[in-house]
């Protein structure tokens, strides 16, 4: 893999400069993006490089979060370790549970592996609310960041830098792992486990090690989240957490090293940005995931590679033209789809149903600052025509650039 050093330095510098330019709310979102990026990187290491599809990574994330919370509360609130080193506890917890779970899960490969990981996560999710001492029951456990090393860790900026340092360090370590012999063997495990066994390697041990390392960094991400939220609830074991990391990683593209991290950062950002505007964000996320799986199996980061290839094959002008065509189609289809979904969502909401019942007719709904009557044809013509134009553009693009686009 080629690493563009100037680009990398610029990226890190940008991340380091963020607190100076961003308002507080966005900075908290940035912390969440960083945590999601690390979690997705850890996940991508297992599913992309080792070829093991896990549907239960919330278990290791959650264990990391709870271990960190307990460590912060240890010794009457003074903490087991200085605050900046707290995520190490999360990493240790993730590693410990990862070794045990990995030993079970990697007994089998492929589909069965996926089901076992799901079952382990569900086991924890079912058990956690019962064990009140460990997981705090329904209400969870809260904690406080203790001042340490002359820093209070009271401001968001300090937490941001702490998170940034840990995330960059972890991603660098994960990258370093891909270059070690163990990392290369992980790749071999994905490609051909049988041959690896014939060559005399301990395949089960390798699987467990890959699993445990992924779980360790997931635990670290969980620890960072607990550190930033100053609380942990058994909801971190929820199947939704496992699902989100799968969707994020594959939308970003597990084929490249930074794909999952970029995908997770992007999706977390969008999730934050649109959380007020829509209730259907998860639906859009799922649709995007299915579209990526069907039409761009290498993920969004793979699209970049496709673009580069297009430029090399046909030159700048046709490449830009086709990119504009595809981009235009995407914009039209998205606009039409989102409009239709939002309209339906408002029409199916309970408030609207009560309103319609009371008025004995179908009142207009407000969207984009103007009313839309559900009975008039023009309301439905708008999304339909947007979708139709988008589809036409897709067909044009496919005819012109059938092989590359």
């Amino acid at each position, binding site marked *: 893999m080629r690493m563009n050093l100037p680009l990398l330095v610029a990226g890190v510098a940008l991340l380091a400069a963020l607190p100076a330019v961003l308002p507080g709310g966005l900075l908290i979102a940035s912390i969440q993006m960083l945590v999601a990026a690390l979690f997705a990187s850890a996940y991508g290491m297992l599913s992309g490089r080792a070829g093991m599809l896990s549907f239960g990574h919330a278990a290791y994330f959650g264990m990391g979060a709870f271990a960190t919370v307990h460590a912060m509360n240890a010794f009457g609130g003074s903490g087991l370790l200085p605050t900046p080193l707290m995520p190490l506890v999360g990493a240790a917890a993730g590693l410990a549970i990862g070794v045990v779970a990995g030993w*079970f899960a990697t007994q*089998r490969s492929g589909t069965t592996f996926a*089901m076992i990981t799901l079952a382990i996560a569900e086991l924890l999710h079912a058990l956690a609310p019962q064990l009140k001492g*460990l997981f705090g029951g329904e209400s969870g456990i809260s904690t406080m960041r203790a001042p340490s090393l002359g820093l209070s860790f009271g401001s968001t900026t300090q937490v941001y830098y702490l998170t940034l340092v840990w995330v960059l360090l972890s991603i660098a370590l994960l990258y370093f792992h891909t270059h070690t012999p163990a990392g290369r063997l992980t790749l071999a495990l994905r490609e051909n486990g049988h041959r690896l066994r014939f060559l005399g390697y301990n395949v089960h041990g390798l699987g467990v090690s890959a699993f445990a390392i992924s779980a360790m960094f997931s635990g670290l991400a969980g620890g960072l989240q607990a550190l930033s939220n100053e609380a942990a609830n058994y909801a971190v074991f929820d199947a939704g957490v496992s699902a989100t990391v799968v969707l994020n990683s594959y939308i970003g593209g597990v084929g490249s090293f930074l794909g999952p991290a970029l995908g997770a950062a992007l999706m977390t950002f969008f999730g934050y940005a649109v959380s007020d505007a829509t209730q259907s964000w*998860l639906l859009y996320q799922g649709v995007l995931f299915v579209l990526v799986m069907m039409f761009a199996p290498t993920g969004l980061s793979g699209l970049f590679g496709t673009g580069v290839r297009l430029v090399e094959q046909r030159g700048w002008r046709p490449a830009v033209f086709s990119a504009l065509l595809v981009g235009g189609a995407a914009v039209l289809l998205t606009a039409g789809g989102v409009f239709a979904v939002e309209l339906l969502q408002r029409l199916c909401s309970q408030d609207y149903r009560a309103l319609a019942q009371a008025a004995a007719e179908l009142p207009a709904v407000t969207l984009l600052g103007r009313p839309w009557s559900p009975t008039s044809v023009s309301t439905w013509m708008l999304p339909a025509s947007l979708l139709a134009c988008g589809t036409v553009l897709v067909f044009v693009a496919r005819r012109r650039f059938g092989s590359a686009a």
Partner: protein
Amino acid sequence: MDTFVFSLLNGTVYGLLLFMVSAGLTLVFGMMGVLNFAHASFYMLGAYFAYTLQGPIGFGPAVVAATLLSGAVGVVVERWFLRRVHHHGHAHELLLTFGLSFIIAETIKLFFGNYPVDYRIPPALDFAAFTIGRQQYPAYRALMAVVALAMFGALWLLLTRTRIGIVVRAAIYRPRMAQALGHNVQLVFMGVFGVGAALAGLAGAIAGAFYTTNPNMALEVGVMVFVVVVVGGLGSLGGAMLASLLIGVITSLAVSVDRSLADLLSVVGAGAWAEAVGGLLTLKLSSLAATLPFALMLLILLVRPAGLMGEKA
């Protein structure tokens, strides 16, 4: 004693319900090697279809229509989604169905809201079948069991006694050879996928009225069905039946046991120590009931990795 018989019966009925959902899953897996993550979504779709149609066309026709509609959705998923990504491999297909299950759940939330809908047993079917002691047993539960058993019998006869069954089994065993002999294996795949989805839809339409119908039901049943399929052995219909009953009965019986590990340890004189340790040791078995299937699955994977009746290791 009455309670014991009742939990046993309830567990059996729940197990039969699990079997109705897992039968399709295990057949599809045995045939195409695809673990269909969206399978339990068909169960949920069945319940919601039946709930929507129940008003206009009545309960019985609604159940039939829901079964057919779920099957149709299954056919669409196989024909226009799975087949397109088949060449990317099984992991890719698994991920695609995972995404589809996500979309189905979110679409249902979009149309019906986040809360359980008011889908109930029709009054005509809401009576007691028989009485043991002073407790009455609802006829609807018995009806669910009858439907599941009839389905098991029909599937078994279809697969072992008819010409279609021979072709399907051939396509499961050696797809390429069956294709070379002139059978349309693609069509068989689509048919099996559709039938599996329809069976799950039927289970949902019937069970949704008895249990609750909400957007989380797919996940709850789906996870349990995966456990059933792993415990029973992937691709084995008999194994699915056995594992479903086992899990149904175990969870149902565990709910009524008000004992903990500490009580067991006190027999050997370690009760006080266990009370002092707390945590897992003092939890009542009844509150652990939800975790027992997963523990059973891990146990099975340890002692018999291929599942109770599975052959493929």
